[in-house]
């Protein structure tokens, strides 16, 4: 799947932004084989990479950590191909998301349950819910979405991707991406609506 992971055609960052990439020196050292420099890059970006992957895999800690490791190993392998045409953080984030999507693509379609949020999954009623409670419930509800619907929702509503990009990476039509997003939002509203009016 390395070839698919190579397809990182994220729009380029503005020239001024690229010139100010705070990672550029460290990236050059890492690309020349300096593992300590690469560890610096890991320390700077691990939380963001892991955050994106964790949400895409439905909050499964062990899987997210495994894929985060995989993403950084692939980044090391592909540093030779990084041409500073975007910010390193953008390139790395794209690669990380792609790593998680490859995991998603390897799943059987049957794992995409039609009704993932059943009666047993209704979130517990509480009084005086605060914003923090909503966030926790929302994370839990997102994690229980069918994998593809979750991927579309996370990429569009959390990561800010366009439907065209999502469709390209997930191998689906733009219309399908929009339909999956509509479905995912509907499932989330159904899960949260009664408790967060």
């Amino acid at each position, binding site marked *: *799947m*390395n*070839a*698919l992971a*190579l*397809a990182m055609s994220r729009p380029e960052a503005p020239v001024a932004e690229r010139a100010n990439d705070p990672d550029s020196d460290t990236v050059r050292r*890492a*690309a*020349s*084989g300096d*593992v300590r420099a*690469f*560890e610096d890059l*890991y*320390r700077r970006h*691990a*939380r*963001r990479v*892991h*955050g*994106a992957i*964790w*949400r895409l895999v439905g909050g499964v*800690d062990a899987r*997210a*950590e495994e894929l*985060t*490791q995989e993403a*950084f*190993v692939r980044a*090391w*392998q*592909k*540093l*030779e191909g990084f041409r500073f045409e975007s910010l390193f953080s953008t390139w790395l984030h794209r690669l990380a998301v792609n790593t998680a999507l490859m995991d998603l*693509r390897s799943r059987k379609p049957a794992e995409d349950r039609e009704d993932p949020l059943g009666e047993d999954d209704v979130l517990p009623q509480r009084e005086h819910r605060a914003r923090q409670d*909503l*966030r926790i419930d*929302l*994370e839990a509800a*997102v994690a229980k979405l069918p994998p593809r619907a979750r991927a579309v*929702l996370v990429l569009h*509503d*959390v990561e800010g991707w366009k439907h065209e990009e999502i469709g*390209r990476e997930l*191998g689906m039509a733009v219309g399908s991406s929009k339909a999956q997003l509509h479905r995912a*939002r509907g499932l*989330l*509203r159904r899960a*949260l*609506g009664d408790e*967060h*009016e």
Partner: protein
Amino acid sequence: MSDFELRRALKDLPRERDPRADLWPGIAARLGAQQAPAAAPVRRQSPRWLAIAATVAVALGATWLGLRTQPAGDAPRAARDGSGWSLAQADAMAESYRGAMAASLGGEHRAEMARFLATPDVVAAERELDAAQRQLQQALRADPNSVYLLDLLRQTHEQRARLYRPALAIG
């Protein structure tokens, strides 16, 4: 909860999350088992590797250049007979790659290459590349005129050529 409120809540979710433990030791262990990025100017480039790389690059490049300049004429024909233009080019590209590698790796280097291909890391990498090619070919059958997928397939051929680099560099 309205659609607007839901989207705002999603947008406000934290983007960062700490792993439960430091993942760097595991990453470093895997990096230690690998080479430095190929850009590292530490590996001696043998004439044999350069010759093979050039042969493969020319073979793939010629195929790629040909397909980039022909779609206007060939795509409708391929669409008419149902075969798909990119799908046909993928077959031609695979044939070019096989021919270039066979010409470059034969003779006295065959045994050395066989030993290299049997090492666990290479077997795993080959398996990954095989899987990628199978998936791309499957995707091409569903979208047989996709230049994008064809380009990805070309990259897998180039990656496979790079995979052989360590064995060839010592020849």
